[in-house]
């Protein structure tokens, strides 16, 4: 199993589209927007630090939805999962490898954006905050692993890629990952703050603001996670 996990991670990193969407875009956006927009602060947080969280989560979602979700659909359509069913591995190992590789691949994305924050933009944070951010962003990304699985087992091939891409852009835009929801009109802000993207990032934004990360927003995120999880299990069961 570890051999399968190893090549799964390896071949995902070798995929040019994956590297572009998951690493180049978030890093590029982070550097571009922190330079372009002279937003000094969001609330009490420096924009350079605030946007680090946004883009880390944005990149992490790409891992989950595009890197894992859409590719599940492709591999199902092209018969890899059928071949796997004829190998001496547990039937669930495919999905386990996918989910574990997603949770692993999120980590370098988060670290890379934070490096840009630290080294390029000179973000200054207490050491404890730096260390706390990584697991918090990682935790916020987990519900999207389930969403990716749900997409992968609902749509086929190119349709899955379109669905993943649409959800990815829509949720990150409305959830305030591209620009803070505070710049939205009130009604849009109300919509945005109910989304899992906002609530996932909120954990880390609160940490940056020196606040306790776990509020009722975390409960809402947990609700989303449960929903995505249920849909993923339902879709997976249907197909298997």
């Amino acid at each position: 199993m570890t051999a399968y996990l190893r090549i799964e991670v390896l071949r995902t990193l070798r995929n040019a589209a994956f590297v572009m969407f998951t690493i180049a875009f978030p890093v590029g956006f982070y550097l571009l927007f922190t330079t372009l927009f002279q937003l000094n602060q969001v609330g009490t947080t420096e924009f350079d630090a605030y946007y680090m969280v946004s883009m880390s989560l944005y990149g992490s979602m790409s891992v989950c939805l595009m890197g894992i979700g859409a590719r599940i659909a492709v591999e199902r359509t092209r018969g890899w999962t059928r071949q796997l069913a004829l190998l001496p591995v547990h039937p669930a190992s495919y999905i386990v490898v996918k989910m574990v590789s997603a949770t692993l691949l999120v980590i370098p994305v988060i670290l890379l954006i934070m490096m840009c924050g630290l080294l390029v933009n000179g973000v200054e944070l207490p050491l404890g905050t730096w260390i706390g951010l990584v697991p918090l962003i990682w935790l916020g990304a987990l519900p999207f692993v389930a969403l990716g699985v749900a997409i992968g087992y609902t749509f086929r091939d190119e349709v899955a890629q379109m669905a993943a891409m649409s959800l990815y852009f829509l949720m990150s835009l409305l959830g305030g990952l591209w620009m803070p929801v505070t710049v939205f009109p009130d009604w849009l802000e109300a919509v945005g703050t109910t989304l899992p993207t906002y609530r996932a990032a909120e954990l880390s934004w609160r940490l940056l603001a020196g606040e306790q990360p776990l509020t009722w927003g975390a409960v809402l995120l947990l609700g989303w996670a449960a929903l995505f999880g249920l849909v993923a299990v339902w879709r997976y069961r249907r197909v298997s």
Partner: protein
Amino acid sequence: MNDSNSPAIEISGLRKRFGQVVALDGTDLRIGVGEVVAVLGPNGAGKTTMLDILLGLQRPDAGEVRVLGGPVRKAIDEGRIGVVLQEGEPLQGVSVREMIRMLADIHPHPMPLDAVLAHAQLTDLVDRRTEKLSGGETQRLRFGMALVGDPELLVLDEPTAAMDIAARRSFWTMVRGLAAGGRTILFSTHYLEEADAIADRIVLMAHGRVVADGPTTEIRAMASGRVIRCTLPDAVPGDDLAADLRALPAVTDVEVHGTAVTIRSADADATVRALFAAYWQARDLEVVAAPLSDAVFSLTEDRPADGAQLTTGATR
């Protein structure tokens, strides 16, 4: 391990329908250890459905399957079956070596990497990425992937469907090499000559049933036909020659092209005797066994539209 008496594959009373379509209609099949068996039949005969059920990819409506003396899942988990499905891409973004190493890691008693590479003619491609392989090379990789577990039983579902003639030939050379090692091999094909050349035994399927099963020679004999060719130099085109020839004993079919005559006969001796009696000038006489395609046609002839899809590969 199973004892030598228990068959490699035992299928009994298999039934499967998809809506109105009956895919399998009480299929029975028993394959001994070490046999090389071809499943032959037109599209829609039920070959793939039977193999899918055999491998546990589909559930039958009724009937039983035992593989290597037990349930197929057990045989798979013990790494005793290698399969090449009709479709299915290897993982992309990995090299041939990485792909095979990974599979070796999940099998209980893998074949050494070098042996897999040699059997599947992959030695020169070992560092190539899977997505950069040509169609024929990909098929070799798929074959190599089926060998990694050092399986006792190989199941190949139309493995040469997408190959050109040269690729097919080299593919079957690889398969023959493995058959020589005492492995049981079950493959389905559209190509009569492949069944003829590779298999010890042919199972002919039509309409979800096994309509014939035996050594290749026996399957041919079942059509009990001979083809008689000769030249009738005095034959007058437009004459009632064809009708006259058809009236000869045991004749089943007649084709006349100018002076060249082809007669199909159920009893060549009787036909030839009568032919010479009636046409003393007949020459260039040739009597041959009816080609396997004739046997297939005669056994599946109640649906000629399907039978017509059978091809003899290079010869047609």
